Structure formats: structure tokens, C-alpha cells
């Protein structure tokens, strides 16, 4: 009689994910019994879930856990990303409640969906099997499609959800096809296995099937991180989606895309480094330039930040091209910083917005500094960080990314990056010009800062400034994390 091989289950390796999905399902049950006006309790409960998950993540730092026959690996790399994801979803939940009440889409499913999306992101970071990564991506994407169209009564939101779904499904095909070709060439879907196989059969590095597989996976991931020319969905989806979800999408899933992208390419395909660095070089330049130049012409602030987030993905790609310790650690550091500054900026946008968001144009920020000096100041901090001006996190992050590129000899890439961030100052400063140098047209009387918003903005500012003033500690963590 044959013995059935019991897979090496190691629940410790999926503990943070398990916590989130269990809490998410409990919330779904509770949701049924909660009246609409009390849905906020779900938010608080999900925050508890996030806290527990964060505890498991932090606790596991330094002790990698492998599980499910090497399908998942909860190492420092995934821990670092998990912190970004959890932070991102926690801040999103904090700013979501007031928004969904205002926009009258206060459905309790919001919070479980965010938790599920976060679970998906975590699997993308800790997956060491192409299948795990793909499953994580799907869990994330499906949750996001719903979240993007969450404001059911809003046509734009519907449009965003549908567009995201169509294009997401379309691009997923490329990713999956790439994975299939890779599997075909190497006979395994395990990331470590692929690397090992290629190393042992060096002839494979000339194999067109594997090369195309690699390129298609790059395309699939590029769609997730919204790199040009696979970025077209971003502005429409970001503009239409409910604002907290836009904030969420621009930070968390993008980081998850980078996590999977980095792990697959750095661990499984180092033999193709010459090929993928030249591809990413081109993508980085295109992405930065497209993002920044188009952002200049935007009047809608959400749309502007969408293009800005494309540009920021381009900056992060610079570190990827460098593919050295400084550059890759720089990506992690930058994604963490970006989470703080972008969620902070979106928090302000939600606060300033009115029902139906008729006032999302940059010109609607005229005179904010007169009526709400503290808010204008906070927004300025975030904008300065997005520009990359010291002493904010954005500056330090860009500094590491670009110095990584220089270290690897990509001087021109660094120069293009710096020129791009100089150009970006224009559209960020435009908001500040309106806030500080124009007379107020609106009275902003409706604007009310709830404790949740206060906490969010304070956390975001603290994050931006701490990372900007004393980056050493966090950079060290990032450097430890990228030793994969």
C-alpha cells in the first residue's frame, strides 16, 4: 500500500494571512446583523484583525517560516512588505468610514473586501511558487474589482470597476501565459526550482520559450504596478473608484506587484538579468516620463495623483534596474514612504471633497491655508515628500533609488529620474500655489476632521518625517529584508 505523502504544512508560514481571512469571514457574518448606520464597527473590528496580523508579522522578523512544500516562505522580505500592506489597509479603513457615509455606499462588505485584498497581497509577497503568487494576485484583483466599483450609485465608479476588471483579466492572461511557458521550459513552478534548473542547464538561457515566458511575466507584473505602456487603465480607474480605494490601490497592490515582481525576477531569473534590466530600463524611463508629463496637464487632483503614482512606480523601477543592494532596499524603503505620503494626501482629498465630489479640481483648493491652515500644512508636507524634498521620506527614498542606479553604472537613468522629479515639482507645487496664494472661493464650512482622520494624518506625517529625518534604521531593515 502506498503511503500518502502528507504535505509539509506549516501554519506558522501563513499565520498573518490566516488571521486576516478569518477575521474577514467573521465580519461578513456580523455584517448581516448590523444596521447600515453601525457599519463603522466592522471597521474597528477589522483594525483589530490587522493589529493581530501585524503582531504575527513583527514577531516573526528574523525567523523565516517555510510551508506547504516550499509554496510559501514567510521571510524578512515578506515581513517587510506585510507591514506595508497592513499599514496601507489600516489607514484606508480609517479614512473610509466617513467617505462611504457621505457617498451613501455604506455597505459592510467594504471592510472584509479590504482584508481579503490584503490577504492576497500578502500571498504575493510570501509566495515562492508561481502558483501561489498567481492565486494571491487573483484574490487581490477580484477584491479590487469589486472595491473599484463599490459606489454602486455612481456611474464613474461602475465604469472604473468594469474597466479594471476587463483590462485586469486581459493582462492576467499574459502573466499566466508567461508562467506556463516558464513551467514548460523548466518543468517546475517553484521559484527556487526554476533558478536551480536554469543554473544546471545553462543552454536554457538561450531558450526562446523561457525568454518569452520571462517577458510575458514582466508584462503581467508591469500591468499591476502600472508601468507604461501598460498603465492606461490607471487614471480612469483611480479617478472613478471611491477615493479611499484609490488611495489603497495606489499604495498596497502596487507594492504587492513589486514584491512578486522582485522575488520572481531576482530569485528565479538572475540568469536573464542582462535581458530584464534592459527591458526595465526602458519601462522605467517611459513610465517616469509618461506619468510626469501627463500629470502636468491634469486638473482633477485624483487624476493628477494617478499619473503621479505612475511616475512613482517609474522611480521604483529605477531601483529595480540597479538590482543591487542599495537599489532594491531603496524600493522597499520607497514603497513604505510612498504609503505614508500618498495615503496622507488622499486623506486630505477626502476631507476636502463634498458629496459626489464635485470639487476635486486643483482650483478647488484655493485658499485652503486660510480656512484650514493645519490641513494645508499637512497637505504641503505630503506634497513635498512626493516631490522629493528634504527632510521628507520622499527625498531619502529617491536618493537611495538613484544612488543604487549610479552604483550599478546607470548614470543616465539616474539623470533622467532626477530631471523627471524636477518636472514633477510643477504639478505638485500648483496645488500649493492654490492653497497658499489664492483667495478662497469656497467656505469649506462642511469640512470636519474626525478623530479617525486626525489619527491617519498624524500617522502619515509622522511616517513621512521620521523616515525622512532618521532613515538609517528603516533602511537597515530594508537591507536585511532584501537578502533573499
Amino acid at each position, binding site marked *: 500500500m502506498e503511503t500518502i505523502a502528507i504535505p509539509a504544512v506549516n501554519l506558522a508560514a501563513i499565520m498573518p494571512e490566516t488571521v486576516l481571512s478569518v477575521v474577514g469571514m467573521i465580519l461578513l457574518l456580523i455584517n448581516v446583523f448590523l444596521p447600515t448606520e453601525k457599519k463603522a464597527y466592522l471597521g474597528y473590528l477589522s483594525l483589530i484583525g490587522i493589529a493581530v496580523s501585524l503582531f504575527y508579522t513583527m514577531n516573526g522578523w528574523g525567523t523565516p517560516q517555510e510551508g506547504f512544500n516550499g509554496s510559501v516562505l514567510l521571510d524578512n522580505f515578506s515581513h517587510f512588505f506585510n507591514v506595508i500592506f497592513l499599514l496601507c489597509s489600516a489607514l484606508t479603513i480609517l479614512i473610509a468610514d466617513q467617505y462611504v457615509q457621505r457617498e451613501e455606499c455604506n455597505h459592510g462588505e467594504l471592510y472584509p473586501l479590504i482584508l481579503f485584498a490584503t490577504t492576497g497581497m500578502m500571498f504575493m509577497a510570501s509566495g515562492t511558487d508561481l502558483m501561489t503568487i498567481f492565486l494571491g494576485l487573483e484574490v487581490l484583483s477580484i477584491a479590487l474589482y469589486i472595491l473599484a466599483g463599490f459606489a454602486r450609485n455612481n456611474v464613474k465608479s461602475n465604469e472604473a470597476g468594469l474597466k479594471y476588471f476587463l*483590462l485586469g483579466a486581459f493582462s492576467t492572461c499574459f502573466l499566466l501565459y508567461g508562467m506556463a511557458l516558464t513551467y514548460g521550459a523548466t518543468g517546475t513552478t517553484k521559484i527556487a526550482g526554476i533558478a536551480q534548473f536554469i543554473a544546471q542547464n545553462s543552454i536554457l538561457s538561450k531558450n*526562446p520559450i523561457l*525568454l*518569452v515566458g520571462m517577458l*510575458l511575466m514582466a508584462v503581467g507584473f508591469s500591468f499591476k504596478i502600472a508601468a507604461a505602456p501598460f498603465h492606461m487603465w490607471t487614471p480612469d480607474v483611480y479617478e472613478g473608484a471611491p477615493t479611499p480605494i484609490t488611495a489603497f490601490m495606489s499604495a498596497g497592490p502596487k507594492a504587492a506587484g513589486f514584491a512578486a515582481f522582485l522575488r520572481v525576477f531576482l530569485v528565479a531569473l538572475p540568469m536573464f538579468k542582462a535581458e530584464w534590466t534592459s527591458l526595465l530600463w526602458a519601462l522605467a524611463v517611459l513610465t517616469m516620463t*509618461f506619468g510626469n*508629463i501627463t500629470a502636468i496637464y491634469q486638473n482633477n487632483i485624483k487624476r493628477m495623483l494617478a499619473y503621479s503614482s505612475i511616475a512613482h512606480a517609474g522611480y521604483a523601477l529605477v531601483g529595480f534596474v540597479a538590482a543591487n543592494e542599495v537599489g532594491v532596499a531603496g524600493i522597499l524603503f520607497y514603497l513604505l514612504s510612498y504609503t505614508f505620503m500618498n495615503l496622507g494626501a488622499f486623506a486630505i482629498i477626502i476631507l476636502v471633497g463634498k458629496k459626489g465630489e464635485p470639487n476635486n479640481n486643483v482650483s478647488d483648493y484655493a485658499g485652503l491655508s486660510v480656512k484650514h491652515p493645519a490641513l494645508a500644512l499637512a497637505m504641503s508636507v505630503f506634497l513635498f515628500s512626493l516631490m522629493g524634498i528634504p527632510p521628507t521620506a520622499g527625498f531619502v527614498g529617491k536618493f537611495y533609488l538613484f544612488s543604487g542606479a549610479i552604483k550599478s553604472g546607470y548614470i543616465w537613468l539616474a539623470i533622467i529620474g532626477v530631471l523627471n522629479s524636477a518636472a514633477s515639482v*510643477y504639478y505638485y507645487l500648483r496645488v500649493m500655489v492654490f492653497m497658499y496664494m489664492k483667495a478662497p472661493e469656497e467656505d469649506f464650512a462642511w469640512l470636519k476632521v474626525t478623530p479617525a482622520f486626525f489619527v491617519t494624518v498624524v500617522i502619515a506625517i509622522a511616517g513621512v518625517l521620521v523616515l525622512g529625518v532618521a532613515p538609517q534604521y528603516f533602511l537597515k531593515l530594508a537591507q536585511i529584508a532584501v537578502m533573499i
Partner: protein
Amino acid sequence: MLEYVGLIPLFPFIGFVINGLLGKKIKNEKVVGGLGALMVFCSFLVSSGILLQLIGRPAEERIFEKVIFTWIQSGQFKADAGFLVDPLSALMIMVVTGVGFLIHVYSIGYMHGEEGFYRYFAYLNLFTCSMLLLVLGNNMLLMFVGWEGVGLCSYLLIGYYFHKKSAGDAGKKAFVMNRVGDFGFLLGIFTLFWYMGQTHNVWTVNFREIAANAHLLPVGGVVTLIALFFFIGATGKSAQIPLYTWLPDAMEGPTPVSALIHAATMVTAGVYMIGRLNFIYIRSHEAMLVVAIVGAATAIFAATIGTAQNDIKRVLAYSTVSQLGFMFLAMGVGAFTAGVFHLMTHAFFKACLFLGSGSVIHSMHHALHHAHSHDDPQDMRNMGGLRKAMPITYLTFLVSTIAIAGIPGFSGFFSKDEILWQAFSNPFHGGLNIILWGTGAVAACFTAFYMFRLVFMTFFGECRITAKAKDHLHESPLVITFPLMVLGLLAVVGGYIGLPKLIGDMFGGIPNYFEQWLEPIFAGSHEFTLQQLAHAEVHHSHALEWGLMGASVVIAIVGISVAYTLYIASPQIPKKFTDAFPALHRAVYNKWYIDEIYDFLFVNPCKALGNFCWKGFDVLVVDGAVNGVASIVRGFSSVIKNLQTGYVHNYALSIVLGVVTIIAVYVIR
């Protein structure tokens, strides 16, 4: 206690934050002012604890460095944010927090009812914090942070009455002139860092590490350059020739500010810096000579101007410039201990003098206000006979004046005499010594003269305001007179910790505690001098030293007698004198026209250049290029924008096109 050194600058910073953010809402002056003073007092307590702990240790262990965190790390370059406690910085924090506390208390009374009371205390606390950072910083960069911080606060406080154009201008002037000096300071830091790194692979900005590696520095050459760069910084902050003209104008600020910032603490930062970097200066006789000459020249130059001013605060301002000159003279002749000693005693008596003048102005202002007179309350020609109305102010003022004039038994005598003696007997400048001493001695004579002129014009003779106003003259409240009394006391006894050996021996061998205390800081330089200069150990006879000491006493008495003759005994003489030499009087009264010369030489050409750059270059070339680039980018942007059609099939097409291109490039290649 040493572990808690970080609290010393932290307390005033907390005060700054609270008063700065909430002061406007608190409104209650007692709370705002009390908090400001309390915070500085807390710093004073911690400082005292640290001082006592240092005293308890053996001399060679009186150094302690507390690193808070790594501030900057980039390649070879590393700077910690940390504090250095040693006898020199311990002394400085005592002066800053002690005198600072008294002036905070005084300010509660003096600034009563002022608009922006909270703003004043917030700035004053921020100043205290910056000054403490300056003296406690364990490396040159942190010191520079404090250096800039005090400069900023000085600017803010000079321009405190910003609705007055003169105050705004004075603040600007102070700031700009300080920037000129800061430029030199920065160059000094860079050059020193670069030189030590390039030639000896010692990449550091930390004071202890630099001092430990001082033996690597050559004598003269690049060290002269470094020393002179640092000295440029010092001339800016400490108001020496040629960058001194901002200090008299800085009197536009409230009087306690003049006492704290522009007399007792900030302006002595340059002296402190040279003391801190003594091992650099000792290695360059050229630089020392420059410092000595500039110091002596400033001392006498400012003293001459002081003799002809009528604004009570301006006299004191020029006096400060002159006294700072004495300190630099001391530094330039290698008498670092004497320079720092004079720094301390000067902090006591000059703070007392400024606060006393504030008390006088305060009283005059009220009296004139009640009498609906528009006379200037700061003009000494309106004063006179105030000693009857304001006995405490008068007494403390008199005591401090005697101290600054250099009458034996008072603090100023010990420190000033030590400087003059060292100027005469130092082994560095050979035949120039006699000139340095002579200049200092004449400056001391002028000092005695103009200070007593001030006292006589203000407190003696007949009161020159209307009888109606005169009835309203009154002594200031205790909150103002208490700091005066404490500082007056210090002005008397403060000198006894640094008795010259000559006098100490006479009274049964009382040692010079002050010199012993600072010994570890300057020991290295002393040793170096002995090695370098064979004749350094020349012993001058006691008779000579006694003689010179006697001479300085005589000089002081001459100055006082002249003042007495001119302003009490026969007050008609000054008038005759000015009539006889109108040109000389005008020149001195107008400060030797230095401001006008600077305007002509620097300010106006700069303005013209700025104008040209603006209209000729900036508007045409730079703006043209910038606007051109901007419109090109915007045009490009509006084209790209059209790609974003909103149709899903177009987006999918772009993805497909991207994929096809990528694969084509890689596979066909």
C-alpha cells in the same frame, strides 16, 4: 546627571513649542512668561548638577560625550548628534542658563503688556535652546546648527517691533552680516574636514577626534587658512571689524534681548569657538596675529565711537563691541583662559548694565508717557539725576560700571588686567606686543571714560525732563530689580575665582581656580607652545607685572577723572571741545562713517548688480528659458493627454502593442 545632558537644550525647546503654539491662546502673561523662565531654570538646575559632578571628578576625567543618534552617514563622512561636556562647555552652559534665567525673569516685568508677549518668550526660549546646542554640540556641524539657530533668533528678536521700519532693517542687517561670517565658518569646516581626510585619512567633524589628531596638523600653511576662515565666522557673530556694524543697530530689539543675545551670550560665540579650536590657532602665528590685531583694533575703535553716543543703549552696544575686541585680543595672544574669563565676567556686568539701562528706559518711558512728552526715553541728554528715583538700578549699574572700568576688587579688573598682561608678555608676537598692550590700555582708558560719562549723564546732575514727567519717575518692580541685584553681585565677586597668581600668592597662595578648571582644554596648546618656542618660558619679573597692573589702574582712574571733569565738574567743556573740533566730533558721532562707507563699497554695488541680474539676465534669459521649456512640456503633455481616450479597447490595444514590441525586440534581435 551627565547622562541627562540632553535635557539642557530640551527644556527651553519645550518652552518654545508650548509658547509658540499655544501662547496666543493662553494669554495670561504670568503663565507664558513663567513657563519660559521655568524651562530655563530647569536647564540651569541640570547644568548645575553637571558642573558639580564634573568638579567631583579628577581633572583628566572631566570630559564626557553623549551621543544621541547617528545624524548623517554617507561614505567616509559621519556625524553624530551628540553633546560634549567638558570644563569649557560646562562653564558656558552655566553662563547661558544662569544669565539666561535672570533675563527671562526680568523680561516678565519688562515686556509686561507688550503685544506678542508670547512670541517674545517663544523666541527667547528658542534662542536659549540654540545657544545651548551651539556650546554643547560635539561636532562642528551641530555647532553650526546652533550657530545658525542663534542667528535666526537674533534676527527675529531684533525685528520684534517689526512694524517699525528701523527694527526690520536692523534685523535684516544683522542677518546679512552674519551670513557673510557664516560663509567663512562653513569654509573653515569644509577645509578642515577635507584637509584632515585627504592628507591623513581622518574623516571627522567631531571636536574630540579633531583635537586628538591635532598633532597631524602642520604649523602655518593650510592651518592659517583654516584658522582665518573660522575667524571670519567669528567676526560676523561676535561683531568684530569689519563685520561689527550690525550690533549697534541690533539695539532696536527689546532691551533684555540686547542683554542676553547681544551682550552676554550669542556675541561671545566667536570667542567660544576659538577657545574650542585653540589647537588650530596655536599652530598658526599668522592667524593669531590677525586675531590679536583685529581684536585690539576693534577694542579701541568701538571705544572711541562709544564716547560720543547719546543713546544709552548705543553706548553699551559699542562698549560690547569693544569688550569683545578685548576677548579676541586675548585669544590672539594665546591667552585663551583669560579670554574665556573675560567672556564670563563680561556676561555678568554687561548683562547687568543692559538690564539696568532697560530699567532706566522703562521708567523714563512711563514718565514721559504720563507727561505726554515725545522726548526720546533712550537719549541720555534727557536723563540726569536718576539715582534718587531709582536707587537699586543706580547701585547695580554703578557697581557694574566700576567692574567694566577695571577698578581693582571688581570682576572686570581681574579679567581685563590678565588680558593686558598677556598681551604684553606673550611669546608670540615679539615687538608687536608693546603695541597690542598699548592699544588695549588706551581702549581701557576710553572704556572707563565713556562708561562713567554714561553714569554721570544718567544718574547724576540735574534731571533734564519736565517737572511733570519727573514726578512719575520711579524704581522698577522687584521682578526687574531682582535680576539686577544678582547680576550686580556677580559683577563684584565673579572675578575672585580667577585671581592672578601674583595676588593669590600675596594672600597665602590662593590658586587661580578658573585657570585650573580650564587647564585640560588648553593644556595641549600650552605644551605645544613650549615645544615650538624656546623662549616661551621667559619669566618676567614680578615688579614688571605689578607695574603694569598699577598702570592699568591708573589708566582706569584717568578715564574716570576725565569723565568726572567733563560731565560733573565743568560740564561746559564738552561743548567747547565739540565747537573747537567740529569735524572730529562729527566723525566720531557718526561712527566714523563706516556705515556710509560700507553702503558705498558693498551695499550699493550689490544692489546694482542684483538689479542688473534681475532685469538683464533673469527676466530675459532665465525666465525665457524656463517659460520656453515649460510651454514645450505642456504642449507635449496636451498631446499625450489625447492618447487617453477612455475606451477599453484602446487601452487593451496599447497593452498588446507593448507586448508585441517587447517580444519583437527581444526575439528577433
